[in-house]
């Protein structure tokens, strides 16, 4: 009974932690644009939090540089279960323009998939704010199926 109530409460208030790992800031601006009254993602109960310990969803932007890997792992381990990871932008998904086919970039530790499990992909460079809202809705769906 209590777990059912917990789950239902989690569905209506998924809190988000935003993680920026290198990149050009384009996707960051679009993610913050989703929080303003025009796109208003807060009507789904979403709230941007400062500590990963309070969060249910992690948003990752940018190709992950080698310096960022320990931070990312630390943040990922701090988020309580169940957790969902959204990778936003072509950089976070496949390193985008920073990585040629087969060749490795000396500054990058590869896309987010190499380091932590990614649950939802939002392609685009940068994606439209509506696309990010769709990604968050997909993430909430995934959150309901996880334990």
């Amino acid at each position, binding site marked *: 009974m209590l777990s059912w109530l917990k789950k239902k409460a989690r569905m209506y208030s998924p809190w988000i932690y935003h993680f920026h790992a290198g990149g050009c800031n384009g996707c960051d601006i679009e993610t913050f644009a989703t929080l303003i009254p*025009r796109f208003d993602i807060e009507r789904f109960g979403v709230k941007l939090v400062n500590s990963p310990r309070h969060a249910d969803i992690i948003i990752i932007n940018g190709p992950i540089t080698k310096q960022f890997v320990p931070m990312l792992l630390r943040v990922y381990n701090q988020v309580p279960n169940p957790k969902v990871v959204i990778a936003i932008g*072509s950089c976070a998904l496949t390193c985008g323009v920073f990585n040629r086919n087969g060749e490795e970039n000396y500054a990058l530790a590869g896309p987010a998939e190499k380091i932590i499990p990614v649950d*939802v992909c939002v*392609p685009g*460079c940068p994606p439209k704010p*509506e696309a990010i809202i*769709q990604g968050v809705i997909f993430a909430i769906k995934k959150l309901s199926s996880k334990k």
Partner: protein
Amino acid sequence: MRNIKTLIEALKNIHSKETISYPIGEWPGKKYSNIPETLRGKPIINEEKCIGCEACYNACSAFTIKFFNEKDKRRYSIDINKCIFCGRCEDVCPEDAIKLSNEFELTHFPEENEEKRYVKWEKILKNCKNCGERFATIDQINKIHDRISLNINPKVSEEVLKDYEIYSNYCPKCRKILSYKIGINPSKYYLRIGKDLKEMK
């Protein structure tokens, strides 16, 4: 005084909506929100128009467009996760076969890779008569034939087009080796042009 001004402003706009009701409902005029016509989204390919010239492969700035040969077919693919929607392929395409649509809702789960992640198409290849290597797509060879017949001097058109039909059966390596054997060596054209020039004078 300021507070009163803001209050008046708020009362004026009490009925106007500002938030876009994105997942459900319609924004006045257009679906969801104002999507501009020039928005660059998922690339769409017209397979009939495409000739397989690989111009998009050379122009792609994010190295997303790939191709490989499989038996008698050449398979092309675009990885949407890596695409940055710059539109260079659209600019470069000589046949307007590739176009960026308005579709921007591309969110997917990483498990369902093949369907949503890749745009795929394929073209049939032509074999070399001599060595059996697959060197170009049939559509591309036909297109070159059409281009030549449009731009050629009518004096030599018949001869050149006849030669092209022989010429197009061989791969670039075999053309060099067999050019005198088949009778497509370029020197005969030079001689002919020289004669024409003398006549003109």
